[in-house]
């Protein structure tokens, strides 16, 4: 198993599938503390990515990530567009034009993506945003890649599990960024939709490699 262009295409396809399947869940989460468009926007964005993949097949994982960045920034419409777009764009830069992504490069790419989200959205860990899924994912992927014992799949799994736990951990937090921050303390007790969609994306990366 290698993280090549074929894997990237499968990953993005699974992302689109996940966004379609979880569309209503994301809408409900966002309705509670936002403007209820996250499920709709993510579904639309990744359907557009699917359509692009139908038009031409990317030659490298980096090319697939860059195409995804462009498409999400243009089609999502809400704040998730530039945030995820920047994440994929920075990740694309991190993997460069290599034919395959190595485990430690995957950790680098996740870190670059997270840094892009932070730079664009100005959120910090604990603000109840997608950063709360990405930051533990970056740390877990880094630790797994540096530990050397984990194989490629192990690194992907570590990131996905950490992101999922990070999303769950947003439940009690009080939102300090985005629309949810207007709710103040009333935002506690709800899961952050952006953290959930981030975990879905990283889980799809595992599915594509399995």
């Amino acid at each position: 198993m290698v993280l090549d262009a074929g894997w990237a295409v499968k990953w993005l396809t699974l992302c689109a599938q996940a966004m379609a399947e979880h569309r209503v869940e994301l809408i409900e989460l966002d309705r509670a503390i936002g403007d209820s468009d996250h499920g709709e926007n993510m579904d639309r964005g990744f359907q557009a990515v699917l359509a692009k993949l139908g038009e031409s097949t990317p030659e490298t994982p980096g090319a697939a990530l860059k195409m995804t960045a462009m498409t999400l920034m243009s089609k999502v419409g809400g704040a998730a567009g530039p945030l995820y777009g920047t994440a994929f764009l920075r990740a694309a830069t991190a993997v460069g034009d290599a034919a395959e992504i190595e485990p430690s490069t995957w950790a680098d790419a996740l870190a670059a993506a997270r840094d892009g989200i932070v730079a664009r959205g100005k959120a910090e860990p604990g603000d109840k945003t997608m950063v709360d899924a990405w930051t533990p994912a970056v740390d877990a992927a880094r630790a797994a890649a540096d530990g050397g014992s984990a194989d490629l799949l192990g690194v992907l799994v570590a990131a996905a599990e950490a992101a999922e736990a990070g999303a769950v951990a947003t439940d009690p937090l009080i939102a300090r960024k985005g629309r949810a921050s207007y709710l103040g303390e009333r935002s506690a007790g709800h899961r952050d939709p952006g953290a959930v969609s981030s975990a879905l994306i990283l889980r799809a990366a595992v599915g594509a490699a399995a």
Partner: protein
Amino acid sequence: MTVSIVVVSHSAKIADGAIELAAQMAPGVVLLAAGGTDDGRIGTSLDKVLAALEQAGGDGAVVLTDLGSAVMTAESALEFLGDPEGVLLADAPLVEGLVAAAVAAQGGADVRAVKDAAEAALGPARRQEPGSADAAGDRPGGGAPPDCTGDFELVNLAGMHARPAAKMAGGLSSLDAEVTINGVDGASMTGLMTLGAGKGSVLHVEAWGTDAERAVSYVSALVQSGFGEP
């Protein structure tokens, strides 16, 4: 030189409307709308921003935005283009900032000055309090007495409304002089409008720099002609 201006809004109608308004005062400036999503919904689109930046002329472009994710989309567009030189994002209220920027661009200001004009439109509430710690450093002429001054009474019926303010700010911004009028920046159209100066009000002009005298006589001529209005 004419700097182009790109308006990124969640709504196509807002972008088009703001541009329609600004175009009246800056007919020679390329104003480009990037409003709404590709499929006409509320939101912002990287494609639209990139297309607008593509149409901007070679003298540079200033990008104005409305709400949070429009800022993020505009920033993403610049990142996507590799942060091109001569394209600047202005942190300014959309309508006031656009009008002020357009007037500055019409007056031949460079891209940095057009951005500054937009950001100066933040209004009195956001300006620095007089007498605050580093206000002296921001005083025109570095606190030195003005090189030229003058007092002129407004004679036109409508006083200092939008069109005269645009004319005056546009003219003053193209001169090599720092000018204040009743204490506000003479090159800032919105600053001039906040004076609320009606017919009979006296404008006290202070000018510093090479073109100080020209600036004062420019204001004098404009005011005494009633801005070409009754």
